[in-house]
């Protein structure tokens, strides 16, 4: 696990070593153990290494036997042992024990199709000196990041945007369309990033630069076209599915424990991380270390469940207890890593948790990420099912009650009348035909936060057709899929890589040199999940039915029987003290001052002031108020750090990478 960077001058101008060193130094937090560069006239590759596999032999950039291909690689190829055996039988020989060399040999054998053979999480660049081809690729689900830009006849790429900004001719300018996407979906739709002309290589895509042309192509697609939602599954078949899921996830976990350093696990107290912990324990034994986040706020805290899992499974457990003040304090540094505004503070506790993991001597953790998306866990799936069910009989007295039952933790919902519920949840007859049926209530609610945009910003955004941006990225037959499959696709193909694996995943973990590994995101598990009949994932309104059937016996009953609780962190109170209404940290007052709001131009000072008054008075209780506040603070920080004070931040970052760990 590492940081990568590099460039190709399309006009043949020689690459500059000092530029490459600067770029990779800035990613020192991703790979503090070693670094290196490789140059071949117009091409440069750079690497900063977090040593996990073949610690002595894995230096990068690495070359193949005749030095004709070179690679800089971030990630892990978990099936490298099997691949190396296959390749050996085809006559390849290896000089290291690393997965990096396996990619080089796979590329020699299969060219750009090499990625089809890989089981893992990757972002890499290969320079093929014979074909004069630069080949970039990113894993199927978007676990590892890769950004690129073309400017002044150069293609420049890196694990993080900040390294690209060192290149002359590349400036950080806020992309207003991307900003509107963040204030709707929570993230920009790849390939867009929050900055104009800086792109993300989308998950499941490769980029080939050859003969002066750049070609971006998809190598993998999440596909629900085979699903028949009406299929009933007899009991005996349930056991067959359950058995296959058990075997696949066990193997996915087994190969994710391949490392020459100790591996820990995150434990949220929910079903998914408990299953992963239980499976990991089978291989690691009693020495397994687990880590979790706890909160002061009892409505958010899951410590009791975590402790129960720790007691039953017997792990060495460490917890970080986050206060609202700490979360607020962390935000500026966290934003330097997420490189994107956020509408929730939820990444901040995970930023603090990865520091605990690192300080405990761990570089690798397994987590339960990716189960909710593909195993039928999310409330939004259930919500869509209930809405469709109610829409089929609008005058039902009982059907609306299911929505209240779904969100016991949302105090605001419990008192609502059916008429209001119907309005909030867009329940109307015939509505399920909308391709975005499942997600419209969430997006429309979130998009209300655009109310705070300045008049100038709104004028520039006014011609947009809502959701057209997303529509253009969907598979051709998407609208023919059933509601549940469509909802799963929207979560798995967009929210997962766009927010959960990035702002709440790679970026906050790698800020402290910690690599996350996700057995539920093994592509065999995901592809299998796209063939599971929907009724087995969510039986009536029982979420994760098959997953519980497969693993219920391995985790404490308190975990399988508990009501599902989404991971949330406190929001508005992280910035203002609810007792005296004062900003908790100097930067909050500064970022939200009318002067700076006006200067940065994105938001309207008057409306923001009203929101702040509401927050200070402790009246900012709604989802909208909270999202808007976090969105405004984090957008101001993005502009402050990446646009206005970029040069200072870049030199800070490079110096800090050399000396000490990122956080103190």
């Amino acid at each position, binding site marked *: 696990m590492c940081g990568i960077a590099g460039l190709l001058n399309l006009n043949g101008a020689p690459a500059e070593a000092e530029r490459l060193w600067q770029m990779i130094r800035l990613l020192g937090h991703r790979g503090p153990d070693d670094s290196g560069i490789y140059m071949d006239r117009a091409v440069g590759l750079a690497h900063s290494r977090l040593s996990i596999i073949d610690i002595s032999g894995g230096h990068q950039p690495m070359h193949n036997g005749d030095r004709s291909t070179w690679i800089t690689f971030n990630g892990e190829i978990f099936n490298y042992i099997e691949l190396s055996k296959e390749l050996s039988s085809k006559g390849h020989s290896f000089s290291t024990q690393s997965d990096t060399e396996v990619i080089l040999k796979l590329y020699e054998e299969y060219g750009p199709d090499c990625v089809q053979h890989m089981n893992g999480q990757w972002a890499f660049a290969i320079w093929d000196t014979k074909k004069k081809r630069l080949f970039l690729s990113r894993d199927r689900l978007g676990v590892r990041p890769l950004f690129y830009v073309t400017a002044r006849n150069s293609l420049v790429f890196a694990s993080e945007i900040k390294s690209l900004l060192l290149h002359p001719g590349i400036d950080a300018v806020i992309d207003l369309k991307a900003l509107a996407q963040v204030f709707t979906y929570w993230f920009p739709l790849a390939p867009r990033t929050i900055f104009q002309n800086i792109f993300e290589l989308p998950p499941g895509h490769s980029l080939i630069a050859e003969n002066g042309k750049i070609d971006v192509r998809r190598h993998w697609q999440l596909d629900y076209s085979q699903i028949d939602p009406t299929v009933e599954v007899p009991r005996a078949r349930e056991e067959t599915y359950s058995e296959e899921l058990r075997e696949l996830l066990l193997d996915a976990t087994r190969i994710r424990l391949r490392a020459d350093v100790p591996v820990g696990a995150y434990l949220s107290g929910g079903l998914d991380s408990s299953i992963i912990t239980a499976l990991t324990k089978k291989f690691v034994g009693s020495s397994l270390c687990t880590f979790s986040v706890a909160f002061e706020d009892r409505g958010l805290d899951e410590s009791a469940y975590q402790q129960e899992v720790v007691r039953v499974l017997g792990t060495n457990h460490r917890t970080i207890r986050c206060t609202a003040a700490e979360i607020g304090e962390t935000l500026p540094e966290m934003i330097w890593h997420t490189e994107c505004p956020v509408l929730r503070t939820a990444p901040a506790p995970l930023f603090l948790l990865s520091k605990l993991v690192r300080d405990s001597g761990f570089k690798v953790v397994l987590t339960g990420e990716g189960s909710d998306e593909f195993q039928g866990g999310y409330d939004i799936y259930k919500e869509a099912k209930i809405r469709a069910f109610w829409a089929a009989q609008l005058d039902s007295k009982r059907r609306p009650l299911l929505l209240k039952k779904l969100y016991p933790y*949302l105090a605001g919902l419990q008192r609502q009348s059916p008429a*209001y519920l119907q*309005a909030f949840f867009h329940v109307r007859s015939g509505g399920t035909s909308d391709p975005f049926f499942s997600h419209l209530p969430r997006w*429309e609610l979130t998009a209300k936060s655009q*109310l705070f945009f300045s008049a100038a910003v709104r004028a520039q955004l006014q011609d947009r057709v809502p959701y057209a941006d997303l529509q253009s990225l969907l598979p051709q037959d998407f609208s023919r899929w059933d509601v549940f499959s469509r909802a799963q696709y929207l979560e798995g193909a967009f929210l997962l890589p766009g927010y959960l694996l990035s702002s709440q995943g790679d970026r906050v973990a790698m800020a402290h040199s910690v690599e996350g590994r996700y057995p539920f995101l093994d592509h065999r598990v995901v592809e299998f999940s796209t063939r599971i009949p929907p009724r087995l994932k969510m039986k009536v309104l029982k979420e994760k039915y098959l997953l519980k059937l497969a693993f219920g016996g391995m985790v404490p009953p308190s975990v399988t029987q508990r009501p599902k609780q989404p991971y949330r962190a406190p929001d508005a109170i992280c910035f203002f003290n609810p007792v005296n209404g004062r900003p908790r940290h100097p930067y909050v007052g500064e970022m939200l001052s009318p002067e700076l709001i006006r200067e940065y131009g994105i938001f*309207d000072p*008057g*409306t923001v002031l009203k929101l702040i008054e*509401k927050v200070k008075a402790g009246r900012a209780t709604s*989802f909208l108020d909270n999202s808007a506040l976090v969105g405004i603070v984090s957008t101001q920080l993005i502009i402050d750090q990446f646009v206005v004070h970029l040069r200072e931040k870049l030199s800070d970052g490079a110096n800090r990478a050399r000396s000490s760990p990122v956080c103190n």
Partner: protein
Amino acid sequence: MEQIEREVRQFVIDNFLFGEGEAQLSNDDSFLEKGLVDSMGILTLVAFVQDKYAVTVPDEDLVPENWDSVKRIARFVQGKSSVIR
């Protein structure tokens, strides 16, 4: 009645419109259609009305007929107050 309308209107502008576009809000506008309130928003309105006008609001009164515009709220408050008196 007019005074109640004025006060409710100001509360809605401060809390849901955040002062923006207040000229465009008529006292008949539906909050739902304008997208001004979510579930917590309704309860915020209820809390405001309960505190300000000393009326109690049982759950069965929580319907859009009573809460979905400035005028409807004023009428609702008026009705409640006259009952008390």
